[in-house]
């Protein structure tokens, strides 16, 4: 019999994340959003509590959680602030390629010292000329003796200004398209690596984002993740692992929007009664609640599928795509229920819309998610 109840351990993990999110993140969310401040003290605290390197096995100093447990935590964090959550979980994305294709020696050398202290890492795949088509990658990794010389530019890189380690995707030969893509772990201190200014963003303003430039950065072959030409597959397998928490992140934003809207609807009166008693508002709230619940269940199901050892491409794409579209739609409806107040910065719901928007774009735009879903779907009929 499938069981939707959480274990006591999972309740504890969720309670920890909830307490941290509501007492330590939420009080700073509006201020960081307004000023685009990167609240390093909050990220340090998340690290101290074990809420940062969630997917890294305990033998390397991480929290060693499966995707289901990660999703419970990420939803709670995102309920308080989407941007802070993006920066808190960016390590999971950046370190996943090392976990998937790193040798035991590389894992020990790269992960153990990294996880022993507060450090941030960035996943550097997207380029200015395109993020959804890694086969068209231009960043070049030229062989030079036993080393590679990496030259190129990666953009929209989360945590890049604050990271000490980058997992970088580059091609050994652009003509090889997907088959040329190769992954490397590159420390911030590498000569020729420079980080651009922090970008001004629409949402997720507590998170930092920048361009990373590589000018003949020397990377030893020992820091190549998997064989040459393995990078495209590695990037796809990485995203298979990390899409599900994005579904959870979007669910957290959507739940926050629903809670704000429902509470407000019970207080705000028009025509002599709370607007919650008007059917027009009830229909909105009911539709929002259905979508939030469906997002959570798709996310949980995706996490459960992958935790059982299956690849879960179909399930995780559905969870990420549906939950992020839901977050945007539910935040939009929450603003509508708040009316003019909802459009004001003083109230919390317009931030949710801006934060929700990114979840439809990053870690695979929803157009790509739908392409993936359709491909997986049609495979079943071919």
């Amino acid at each position: 019999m499938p069981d939707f109840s959480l274990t006591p351990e999972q309740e504890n993990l969720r309670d920890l994340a909830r307490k941290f999110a509501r007492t330590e993140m939420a009080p700073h969310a509006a201020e960081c959003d307004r000023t685009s401040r990167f609240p390093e003290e909050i990220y340090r605290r998340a690290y101290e509590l074990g809420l940062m390197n969630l997917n890294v096995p305990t033998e390397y100093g991480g929290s060693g959680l499966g995707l289901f447990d990660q999703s419970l935590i990420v939803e709670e964090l995102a309920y308080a602030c989407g941007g802070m959550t993006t920066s808190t979980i960016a390590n999971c994305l950046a370190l996943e390629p090392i976990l998937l294709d790193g040798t035991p020696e590389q894992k020990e050398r790269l992960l153990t010292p990294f996880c022993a202290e507060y450090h941030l890492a960035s996943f550097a795949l997207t380029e200015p000329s395109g993020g959804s088509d890694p086969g068209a990658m231009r960043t070049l990794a030229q062989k030079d003796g036993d080393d590679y010389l990496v030259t190129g530019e990666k953009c929209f890189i989360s945590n890049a200004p604050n990271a000490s380690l980058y997992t970088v995707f580059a091609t050994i030969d652009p003509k090889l398209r997907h088959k040329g893509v190769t992954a490397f772990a590159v420390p911030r201190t590498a000569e020729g690596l420079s980080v651009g200014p922090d970008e001004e963003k629409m949402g997720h303003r507590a998170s930092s984002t920048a361009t990373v430039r590589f000018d003949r950065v020397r990377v030893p072959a020992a820091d190549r993740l998997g064989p040459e030409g393995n990078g495209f597959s590695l990037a796809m397998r990485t995203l298979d692992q990390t899409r599900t928490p994005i579904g959870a992140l979007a669910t957290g934003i959507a739940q926050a929007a629903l809670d704000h809207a429902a509470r407000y609807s019970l207080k705000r009166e028009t025509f002599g009664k709370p607007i919650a008693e008007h059917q027009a508002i009830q229909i909105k709230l009911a539709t929002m609640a259905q979508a939030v619940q469906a997002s959570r269940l798709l996310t949980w199901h995706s996490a459960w599928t992958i935790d059982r050892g299956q690849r879960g491409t179909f399930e995780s794409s559905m969870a990420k795509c549906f939950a992020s579209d839901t977050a945007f739609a539910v935040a939009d409806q929450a603003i509508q229920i708040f009316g003019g107040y909802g459009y004001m910065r003083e109230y919390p719901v317009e931030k949710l819309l801006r934060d929700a928007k990114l979840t439809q774009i990053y870690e695979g735009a929803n157009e790509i998610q739908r392409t993936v879903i359709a491909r997986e779907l049609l495979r079943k009929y071919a």
Partner: protein
Amino acid sequence: MEIVVCVKPIPDPETRLRASPDGTTLDAEGVKFVLTGYDESAVEQALLLKEATPGSKVHVVSAGPAPRTEEVLRASLALGCDAATWVELPPGVGLDPVVAARALGKAVSALPHDLVLCGKQAGDDEAGVVPGALGEILGVPDFGAVVDLRWDPGAARLRFQRSAEAGSETWEAPLPCVVALQQAWNDPRTAKLPAILKSRKLPIAKVASEPPPPDGGTSRAVKFELPPPRTGAKLIEYKTPEEAAQKLVKALREEAKVFP
């Protein structure tokens, strides 16, 4: 120093409460029980003393039914307590604080105990009887409403403060004793994720409770009611602070009749 800290599972302050069907107590169905306020301060104090006094151990004890009692014991282990003992009581038993103190006292007396710490009262019924009763049962002195508890190893004395009328008293006391702590004068720590995962696998010693007295103890709860819903809130709309003050004074005078 062998430190024993006694904790009680309390309904999560965010839970919506209901009366039980017979109307004598809280309906525990679906209610989440947590470690709160006074007990968090007591656990924090125990851990601070342990950290300041090498070779110390903290043993956490709770008396109550499953699963709530196990949960607060595991929460205490996750915070850093070394061992846990659970006196399992059937639901509803131990509502009388003297019965609860007897159950705790039996478990504590079987453990090495230089210092027994409690919250000064439970966060739910706020009876404040257990620490005194526990001192009586264990045959040791007890002190209430204590803050800033420190151990002076040279003098082999505890030193602590108590709030008194218009001031603060400083006390010292030898071990063994029972100390009941004020809430939140320290800053209770948050359990970290690895410690939470580890706490789920640690053993908890179970102690059988005495059969409860047939009459349930020295006292008996006869009725449990929630406070009546609040009414009469009024929002005053205004454009300037002067207008707000004028409207507020008018409402206080004419509607609430607070002053003539």
